[in-house]
């Protein structure tokens, strides 16, 4: 009698075969995504950065800065909406790292690690659940924009493309956020490190103000900042005023391409790095 059969308990053991090919990882990712969505629904206050904050930021910027910042060939409200989409999404991404960090501090991570699941679904599932909240954020930014008078001047496909460009970028940033979370000792430190990463990224850009009036060196940084690329890309796709088009830096001349390339590059580097960090963090 072999060990395997003698060890099997009486009664039919349900199939727990690894599954074939790609089907099993997809099922694991889907299960983990649903798990994280349930988490979000349990703590709706955590959703405030994708629900309340977009309304607040958009209204504040339009009404407070709108009068003071002249935009060539257009209105500030039409200029700033793409910036509001970037700002709100970029600042939300670091929550992904905080969430992952708290998972690592709960006993549940041991349960996952002892299960015959695709390990990376812990990361992929979390990024996808957060992407779902980013869609909600984008919707709220768009609706708030329409209420305060933002009007895109482009076809539907182009408008959707503008949203997709910024969402793809935000998704790529969740993987940087997870790298931060995997390197942090606690969810609190993940939050503060994440803020230090994200805040300059969001501010030193063309999101809220044209870069033309920045000091020279800062302007170079801003013009090559991926946040500027996706924001200018969205403005271009929405047919909104885009003062960056007058800047000769390559990303400002090709903002859609540059924004997509930045996002793809970040994803290609950060995702394998996060997977490596996860393996290292969960090996003892």
């Amino acid at each position, binding site marked *: 009698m072999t060990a395997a059969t003698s060890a099997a308990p009486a009664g039919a053991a349900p*199939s*727990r075969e*690894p*599954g074939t090919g790609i089907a099993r990882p997809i099922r694991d990712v889907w299960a983990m995504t649903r798990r994280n969505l349930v988490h979000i629904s349990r703590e709706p206050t955590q959703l405030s950065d994708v629900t309340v904050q977009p309304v607040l930021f958009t209204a504040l910027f339009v009404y407070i800065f709108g009068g003071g910042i002249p935009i060539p060939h257009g209105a500030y409200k039409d200029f700033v909406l793409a910036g509001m989409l970037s700002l709100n999404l970029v600042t939300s991404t670091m929550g992904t790292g905080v969430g992952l960090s708290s998972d690592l501090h709960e*006993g549940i991570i041991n*349960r996952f690690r*002892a299960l015959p699941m695709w390990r990376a679904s812990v990361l992929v599932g979390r990024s996808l659940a957060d992407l779902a909240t980013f869609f909600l954020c984008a919707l709220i930014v768009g609706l708030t924009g329409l209420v305060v008078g933002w009007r895109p001047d482009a076809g539907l496909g182009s408008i959707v493309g503008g949203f997709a460009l910024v969402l793809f970028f935000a998704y790529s940033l969740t993987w940087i956020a997870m790298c931060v979370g995997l390197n942090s000792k606690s969810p609190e430190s993940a939050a503060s490190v994440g803020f230090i990463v994200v805040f300059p990224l969001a501010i030193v850009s063309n999101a809220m103000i044209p870069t033309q009036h920045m000091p020279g060196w800062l302007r170079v940084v801003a013009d090559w900042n991926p946040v500027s690329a996706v924001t200018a890309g969205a403005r271009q796709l929405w047919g909104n005023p885009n003062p960056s088009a007058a800047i000769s830096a390559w990303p400002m001349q090709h903002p859609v391409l540059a924004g997509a390339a930045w996002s793809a590059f970040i994803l290609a580097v950060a995702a394998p790095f996060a997977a490596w960090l996860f393996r290292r963090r969960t090996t003892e």
Partner: protein
Amino acid sequence: MSRDVIEVEALTKRYGETQALAGVDFSVPAGKLLGLLGPNGAGKTTAVRVLTTLALPDSGRAAVAGIDVVRHPAQVRRRIGMAAQDATLDRLLTGRQNLVLVGELSGMGRRLARARARELLGQFELTGAADRVVNGYSGGMRRRLDVAASLMARPPVLFLDEPTTGLDPASRQRVWEAVRRLLAEGVTVLLTTQYLEEADALADRIVVIDRGRVVADDTPQGLKEASRDARLEVTLTAPSPDAVATVARLASGAVEVSDGGRRLGAGVDPVPGLATSIVRALDRAGVVVDNVEVRQPSLDDVFFALTGGHLGDGTPDEPGSGHRAGQAPEGVRA
């Protein structure tokens, strides 16, 4: 040929300065329960972590169902269930959602996972709380749910790491009943515990580990018999160094002093007339005695003898006071 389902050979594992496992060997035959017993920090949890693929050993070999845990961890994971010491549950999911998630991640279909979850919630008397968030569960409910989660995919090998620590007696009984049912189904179980009573009640064999080493490997009965010594307990009216010296002459090992010097305990050779000679000897020494008790060794006594009387941080039964009572100050040891 029947191989052991769990095999551990010369296993070592170091965490920084701590040698958690210093060469541990044990094995568990199919369908049996091995009780891994030891004080806090003895290495019980580390052994379980290696066997459940959560930790890599520094050296030695560990295999589950004939599969090496280091070389083929994914195959091992398909055959094991685990209930860990720090309940491995998702606090924000309901009990039912926890079980279904574990089922799905074990490769069960969603429908099968739901049916199995319903069955286990019933078995562990959690049906009423099934759709409540785990955050609101009591400690006992969490432990029961954790054990239920480990059973979702009907694993042939089960690891239970202190499954009843901190449980009230009724909850403990429920976990014990569940474990007995599993044994009847042929599941092989490794159970770690600090409770001698638990190991005595459930285990076919007990391995005692202390400071990363196996100090005993025997049946519960064999362990008790191995300690032939009877147990002497003397309660004095007032603390007395003379009494300690007198008892030390009769004792076969160290004299443990507790209760501010009023209680003396020791292993003694069970010769005829033992109690009489003790009382006479104490009387000659001018010691006033409240109580003298000579009894057969309990598993507790065996455990204390094997682990040298130290018991991690806090004994299960009387946390706080038990620690000091069990650990005789070095100075008064004879």
